[in-house]
């Protein structure tokens, strides 16, 4: 599902991009322990020329900073890398799209405008989202501007009628992840397969914790066998997801180690860091993921200012 506007210019050779990413990687926050130990965690973030100032920072500002960085990386890529990484950038744009839909739903036109300002979504879709009078019109624009047959538009419309923006988000995300997992490049394919497995594990965990009766919705494309999920679901115990987490991350996992989402994100971060030493594509992927993790952690610090430091320590991914 192509969710990106075409880029002007031919970009630069991969070696040039990698050298620049190595330089910029040095400005990403590496010492989260030090940040969390500081009296004012946000003030302890080392300054970076590539990150907007964090004084009075908002969640929205952090996200816009991430989109700006992704836009910059995409502009530097040559045609081949742009095509290869389209599903990865598409993931970030999906979140932008959903945040914009929520802003439209809440009648916050200006917020939606700010969210879309740095977006890489196709220009036609951006134009239609900006001009949408209400949420239904915005969702119709998404259905019409995303590639797919009439059946896809019906499915998205049905999801919207049943569950609102949450339904649209789930339908778009599931399709995007399943398509990403079929990517021909092994690094991109493995990355999306991990995301699919992670999403399925989180869904299973919610299923078991809240004792949901309807069948477990699994996204296709993961590397973990569906029968493992069905067996865990049959066990009826939320702790049954931890063996799956351990299998996916390659590390021991239990309720004492942290939340399921945190374990999955930490596992993916470690995996990408390791693979990043092996190939060029993995190195770019590792950089993009590090940027996303940093944005997530900064959002946590912005929201969790008054929270217990111990709670933040268990949520910050490093």
């Amino acid at each position, binding site marked *: 599902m192509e969710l990106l506007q075409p880029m002007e210019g031919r970009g*630069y*050779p991969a*070696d*040039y991009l*990698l*050298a*620049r990413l190595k*330089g910029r990687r040095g400005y990403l926050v590496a010492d989260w322990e030090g940040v969390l130990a500081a009296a004012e965690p946000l003030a302890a973030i080392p300054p970076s020329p590539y990150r907007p100032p964090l004084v009075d920072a908002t969640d929205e500002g952090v996200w816009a900073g991430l989109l700006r960085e992704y836009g910059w990386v995409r502009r530097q890529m040559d045609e081949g890398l742009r095509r290869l990484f389209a599903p990865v950038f598409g993931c970030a744009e999906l979140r932008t799209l959903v945040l914009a839909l929520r802003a439209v739903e809440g009648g916050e036109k200006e917020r939606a405008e700010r969210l879309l300002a740095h977006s890489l979504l196709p220009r036609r879709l951006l134009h239609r989202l900006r001009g949408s009078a209400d949420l239904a019109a915005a969702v119709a624009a998404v259905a019409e501007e995303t590639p797919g047959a009439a059946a896809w538009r019906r499915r998205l419309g049905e999801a919207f009628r049943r569950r609102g923006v949450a339904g649209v988000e789930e339908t778009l995300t599931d399709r995007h992840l399943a398509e990403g997992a079929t990517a021909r490049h092994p690094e991109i394919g493995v990355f999306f397969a991990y995301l699919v497995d992670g999403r399925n594990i989180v869904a299973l965990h919610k299923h078991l914790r809240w004792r949901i009766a309807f069948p477990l919705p699994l996204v296709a494309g993961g590397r973990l066998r569906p029968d493992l999920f069905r067996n865990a679901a049959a066990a009826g115990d939320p702790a049954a997801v931890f063996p799956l987490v351990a299998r996916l991350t390659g590390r021991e996992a239990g309720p004492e180690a942290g939340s399921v989402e945190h374990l999955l994100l930490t596992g993916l971060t470690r995996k990408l860091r390791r693979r990043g030493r092996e190939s060029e594509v993995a190195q770019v992927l590792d950089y993009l993921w590090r940027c996303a993790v940093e944005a997530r952690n900064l959002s946590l610090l912005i929201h969790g200012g008054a929270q217990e430091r111990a709670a933040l320590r268990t949520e910050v991914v490093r």
Partner: protein
Amino acid sequence: MEKALIALAAALAIGLSALATAWAQSRIGSAGAGTIAEKPELTATVIIMVAIPETMVILGFVVATMILYR
């Protein structure tokens, strides 16, 4: 026939080493440009790095000369 073979050997010695130098310099050059864009203070180091593969083509030239004028 022998002269033709000597000329071919000399051509291969300089030609292959020139191609290898070109390939290495293209990669080091683009990586070097990226490095200078991020850290201009490394310009001198990058210039040295780009120059290092030149030794290959110089050695190729020496070998070709030795083949031709042995």
